[in-house]
Each structure stands twice: as C-alpha cells, then as structure tokens.
C-alpha cells in the first residue's frame, strides 16, 4: 500500500528557475522535511516550467494551491516549518500583483487567470521524469485508443476535423500534412519532430520537452501509426541539454512500459524513436535544412517540391511537425475535434503558447485561446510595462515576423490577422518594446541575425540581406541618405519573392513592418539625424537644462569620461547681471562637453532634478 501523502510541493525546474537556483531550494526542502520527520507524508516534485519565469524559483503547494515566488533555500526551510508543519502560509513570499495585492493562491494570479492550458497541460504539474505521473493525467490513453479502436484514416480525419494548424509558424493544416504523408506508398516512412527552436525569444518548445516529454513520444507514435511509419526522430538543438536528457529518459521509460517499441498494445504496430542533436544553426529549423542536417550534411535547404511528405529524410516520405503541434494531438484524440474547435477562433482553433518577454512586468510562458487580443496579453496577463513607460510595439515571430504598433493593440492574435498586419505568428515569441526602444535598431538587430544565419546558398538571401543590413547600419550611424527607405522596401520585396527557403523569404519582415508602422522613426534618423528612442549612439546627445540644474555635481562625478564641468565664468556673470539688490550670486550650473561625451546616459540616470535630457 502506498503511504498517505498529505501535501505535494511542486518545485518549478524549468530552465528559468534552474538558472535562478531552484535546485538549492529543492535540497533545502528535503532537508527540512527530513529534520521534521515528515519526509514520508509530503511529496516534493521537480516539475517542468510553471510559466512565471521572472518570479523564479517558484514553489507551488497542493492541495491548497499556494504559490510562493523568489524562494531561497532559507525560505524553503521556513515554508516547511510554518506552512507544512503548522499550516500557516508564509505571506511574505506571495507574489504581488500590479495593484499591490498579494496573491496567495495560484488561481488568483492575473498571470494565470486568462490562460487555457492544452499544450502546457502537464507542464509545471507533473514530474517529467516519472511516467506514472504522465499516465495518471490520461497519458498514453490516446495512443491506446488509436491503436485499438481507430484506423489510420480515422486518426487523420479527426485531426483534419479539429482544424489544428502547424504551430511552427506557417500554420499549415496538420491533418492535411498527415494525409499527404499517408497517401504516399513507400517501404519506409519517417516521423520527425522539429525541436530546433531557434527563434530568439521563444522557449515554449523547450518547456514542453522539459516539462512533458511523454506527450511528444505519445503524439509521434500516433502520427507513425496514422501515416504508416515505424521510426521517428526528434531533432533537438544542442543548446537545450536538459531537454535532451529528459527526452532520452522518457524514451527509455516508454520502452520499459511497452508504449514504445514492438507490437504496441498487441496491435502489431511497432514504433521507435531516436534523438538527433543539432549543432547550432538557425536555418536548420527550416524543414529541408533540418533533414539535410539529420543526414549528417551541412544544414542547407533545398527547393520544394519535392515536399518532405513525398521525399524527405534519406529520400523517404517524411512527416515533420513542430513540438507544440504534437503536444495538441493527444487531447484532440481524447476529447474530440469539436472540443478543440470550441477553443480559439474559427480559422485558428485551439490555443497558442506565447513566450512573453522584453519590457513587460510578468515575463514567462502564457497559453491563451487563439483570438485573444494583444492588449489582454500585455496588460491583463503581462501586467503592463515596467516603470510606467509607454507601450511602443510588440514583435511577434522573431526574426521572421514583424512588429505590431500601439494602434493595433486590439488585434486578435491568430494566424491570418497577424499575417495581414505584416507580422507573423511564427513560433510564438512575443517581445514587448517600450518607448525607449528604437525600431530601426531592432530591425537592424533582426537582420544581423538572419544575415549571420543565412546559409549562403541562394543569392537573394546571401547578398540581399547583406545590402539591407549595410543600409540599416548606415542609417543608425547617422549616414542615412534620401531614398534609403525606398531601396529597403524594394530589396525587401524582392528577397521575399525570390529567396529559396523560409529563412530568406521572411528575413525582410522586421524591416518592412517597422517601415510600415514607424516610417517616421526612419525619417528622423535619415533627415534629422535624430534617434527618437535614444538608442543609436551616434545620433544621441545629452544636454543639461541650466534652469533646472541645481549644481549638485552628481552628474560630473558619475561621468566616466569627465565630460561634464561647471559652466565657465557663470558665477561671475550672474553676479554682474543680478547683483542689484545684493543678491547672493546664482548657483553655478554644469554643462556637457560633447566632444568627450560617450553617450552612456549615466548623467541622466543620476540627476535628481530632471535637468539632463536627451536630444
């Protein structure tokens, strides 16, 4: 008989919390429980990402649902002594909401309220290294149903009816993709999971792999049955070692429990999985480049057709889906396509996981129904912009996507509306930018990225992005010329239409969309040699307002290059002009020598009288 467990302590062990030191918290919890002699009554579990990464390390206690933030090993001891032993929650560790109200329970946190967890259903809830916990959450039930009750056609029809679209970015209907792969006759077929999550700022795939690896194993096996493949590969980027180790463990466990391998559920169907680790190339997220890399070659894309469904890995028909897409499969089989369609919008059913980061109060992973507005995500879930700054834009889809300006805050977040707005769903990276961000600089940043990662195979991408980057660099250095914007637009359109693969075809998006919505910023850089965001160092200067300056000398002391000094002869001048009534001479003020100024902005941040301004 298993012992009676009266409380569960979930310690988030997602990458964010690991970096903030959750292992120390876990050790401390275990030690304290042992000291109290209640190790047998309380179960401590290292879970996958709970989602609120900026509050890490986080600890969640069930059955009450008490949520603790920024827990240190000392706090952990207190949690055991006070909460677990005496039943008194440690109020000082509750997260605070924007209104200052502490939120004791996980359900009362605004960050979680609007979320609907389908893909992340098990992340932060179960121990990813324990198959029993996955099974207890209906794990492998979908596989059992598929193998014992459904034909491959039934499975494909179910996925088609659900309207699920590829979560890797382009939003191609998943059921259709499965059908293409199923229809091809071949002696061997493959199922591939694209876990080469390369978009900077997107980490949902990582969280699923680390927090719920069995969901991918199960879904890929279902896909194998549906299209007639007996071998699957998961291509994971090498930068995710924890994901690789949890997946490896999950595959071993699945073998041990007979849900992966020969003759599954007595159906005669066999399926096996292997992991392939990437070696650091963004372009490998593109499916044909990914296949080349899996074959041990340079990760260069090739023209399509033939599509991988006809000729993929080792020239065999291959089905490639993204991690998040697979994570939707088991729930669709179990709950039916109608249930899935009841979430989200008509054209984009289901949910989408966004990685919320940048200038926002609550960063982390959020899963919301498709069609949720950007405003809801930024202000209700994300808690708004820190420091009372103004929202400027949100970048979706990483280097392939575009920006959404403030005027479109009420945009419905789904595939087609985002594409129409010149942005893109992409993998779901959502970077929030405030008024201190320069849109030209951000466009340059993304182009630098794609230029760097361009494999060099086709001319439009290799040469075109280089020329665009040169122009952008010139603009940010204050050497922009009339006609630059038009050249960027023309080049961008040509590259979009002519590049070989998805990387090149989408590379101009950040530039084109920022020109579309922030043309005035480009013009300010080019015509007025001014950077409105105050980011481009060559275009920024600081000045001290003599009226506001109180002569405290803080700025002069803070200046690393001694560029700030008192205004020469000012005291004497003040005496001469205002000396009539025996006034004491005006306090001396300071000024900045722009030939020495490094534009670090230190003077502005130390001034207590708001006397330093940027121009």
């Amino acid at each position, binding site marked *: 008989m298993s012992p009676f467990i009266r409380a569960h302590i979930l310690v988030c062990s997602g990458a964010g919390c690991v970096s903030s030191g959750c292992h120390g918290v876990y050790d401390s919890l275990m030690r304290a429980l042992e000291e109290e002699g209640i190790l047998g009554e309380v179960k401590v579990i290292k879970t996958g990402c709970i989602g609120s990464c900026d509050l*890490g390390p986080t600890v969640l206690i069930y059955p009450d649902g008490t949520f603790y933030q920024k827990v240190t090993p000392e706090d952990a001891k207190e949690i055991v002594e006070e909460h677990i032993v005496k039943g008194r929650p440690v109020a000082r560790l509750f997260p605070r909401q924007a209104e200052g109200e502490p939120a004791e329970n996980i359900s009362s946190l605004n960050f979680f309220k609007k979320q609907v967890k389908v893909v992340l259903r098990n992340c932060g809830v179960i121990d990813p290294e324990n198959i029993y916990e996955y099974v207890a959450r209906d794990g492998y039930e979908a596989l059992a149903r598929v193998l014992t009750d459904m034909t491959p056609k039934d499975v494909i029809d179910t996925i088609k009816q659900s309207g699920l679209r590829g979560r890797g970015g382009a939003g191609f209907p998943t059921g259709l993709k499965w059908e293409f792969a199923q229809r091809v006759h071949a002696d061997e077929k493959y199922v591939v999971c694209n876990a080469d999550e390369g978009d*900077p700022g997107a980490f949902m795939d990582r969280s699923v792999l680390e927090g719920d690896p069995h969901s991918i194993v199960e879904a890929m096996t279902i896909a194998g049955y549906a299209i007639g493949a007996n071998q699957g590969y998961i291509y994971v980027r090498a930068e995710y070692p924890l994901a690789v180790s949890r997946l490896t463990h999950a595959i071993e466990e699945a073998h041990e429990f007979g849900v992966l391998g020969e003759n599954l559920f007595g159906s005669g169907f066999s399926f096996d999985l292997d992991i392939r680790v990437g070696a650091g*190339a963004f372009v490998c997220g593109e499916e044909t480049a990914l296949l080349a890399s899996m074959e*041990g070659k340079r990760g260069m894309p090739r023209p399509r057709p033939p599509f991988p469904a006809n000729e993929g890995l080792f020239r065999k028909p291959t089905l490639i889906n993204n991690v998040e897409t697979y994570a939707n499969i088991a729930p669709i089989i179990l709950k039916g396509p109608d249930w899935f369609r009841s979430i989200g919008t008509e054209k984009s059913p289901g949910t989408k996981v966004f990685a919320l980061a940048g200038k926002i109060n609550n960063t982390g992973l959020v899963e919301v129904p498709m069609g949720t507005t950007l405003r809801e995500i930024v202000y209700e879930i994300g808690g708004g912009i820190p420091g009372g700054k103004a929202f400027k834009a949100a970048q979706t889809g990483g280097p392939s996507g575009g920006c959404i300006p403030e005027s479109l805050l009420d945009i419905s977040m789904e595939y087609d509306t985002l594409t129409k707005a010149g942005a893109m769903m992409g993998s779901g990276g959502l*970077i929030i930018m405030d008024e201190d961000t320069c849109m030209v600089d*951000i466009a340059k940043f993304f182009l630098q990225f794609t230029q760097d990662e361009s494999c060099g195979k086709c001319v439009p991408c290799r040469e075109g992005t280089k020329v665009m980057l040169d122009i952008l660099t010139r603009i940010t250095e204050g050497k922009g010329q009339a006609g630059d914007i038009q050249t960027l637009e023309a080049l961008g359109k040509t590259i979009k239409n002519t590049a070989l693969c998805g990387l090149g075809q989408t590379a101009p998006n950040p530039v084109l969309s920022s020109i579309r919505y922030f043309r005035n910023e480009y013009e300010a850089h080019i015509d007025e040699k001014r950077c409105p965001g105050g980011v481009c160092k060559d275009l920024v200067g600081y000045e001290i307002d003599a009226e506001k300056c109180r002569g405290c000398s803080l700025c002069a002391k803070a200046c690393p290059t001694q560029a700030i000094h008192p205004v020469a002869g000012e005291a004497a001048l003040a005496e001469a002009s205002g000396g009539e009534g025996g006034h004491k001479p005006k306090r001396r003020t300071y000024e900045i020598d722009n030939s020495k100024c490094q534009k670090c902005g230190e003077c502005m941040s130390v001034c207590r009288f708001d006397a330093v301004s940027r121009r």
Partner: protein
Amino acid sequence: MASEVVAKRSKLESVGGECKCHGKLPDDRFDKLRDVIDEYKDKPGSLIPVLHEAQQLFGCLPEDVQEFVAKGLGVPESEVYGVATFYSLFSLKPKGKWTISVCLGTACYVKGAADCLEALKKELGIDIGGTSEDGLFTLEGVRCVGACALAPVVVIGDTVYAKVKPEDIKRILAEHVEAHSTEAHAS
C-alpha cells in the same frame, strides 16, 4: 593500426603546442574516438553525432581529428570540414578553460545585452570568438538560451548569470575565477 594512432597523436601535439597535456599524459583519445566511430559507423547520418563526441574528447576539431573521422566513417575530408565549419557549435581552434556565452536573443538585446558584450570585450581584451591571453575565457555571442525572463543573461561555463549590467562584468569574472579555483582546491 596502433602505429597509425601514435602517428596521429604526435601530429596533434605538434600543432603549435595546442594540446594541454604537452605529451605528458598517455593520449588514448584517438582510441576512444575509434570506439565512437565504430558504434556509429553503420547508422545513416552519423557524422554530426561523431563530431560532437570528437569535440567532447579533444576540446575542438583540429585537422587531424577531422581526417581521422573522415577515414573512419568513409566520407570525404572535404565533407567533414564542410560540416565542421557550418555549425556554430563546432570549433577548429582550442577554447579557453571557460566559455562565456553572452545571450544575444531578442529579450536580452532589448534589455541591454549589447552593452554587456562590449564590457566583456573591453575587460578581456578580445573580440567574439577570441580567447583571453591567460587562456581562461573564450568569448561567444549565442542565440537565445531561452531564459528570457532573466535577461540579459551571460553564461560562464555552466553558471548562468541573470540580469547582468555592464558594470557587473568585472565582479562576475572575478567571482567566477574565485569560486572555481576554490572548488578545484577542495576536490
């Protein structure tokens, strides 16, 4: 066979004295690599996993290691070189004791990663890809490490430094050396 390995070994060690053991330790790394190659030989598409293991063994992928892999797997040396130079995780040059990876993902960039990178370059006197003169640090800019909530992030060895400011750099480097040198003494 054995003599071939010995020949390889001496060739590696003669490459500008790059090998840290300076010939003092018995170099069984080529034997180990041989085992790795044998394990992967019949699996299709195994060049990248083999190179991963080779880099693990040697710290980098110098020419004769590439040659050894090419012969072992029966692929042209040009292909091995092509793959080794295509992927950013493979390095042909030896690296410092610790690799400093400055995350240049979007979230980190928006929060000032570029300034941290500048501070590191200045402090270590090297550019991206360079190794400091004392052989301690190799500086790299990496794509998103996926810890966006902690931006800007700098990873030194296996240690993640979160919410780094340029003025913290000096202290972080000193702390890292300190922490890891005491670790070495303790063990």
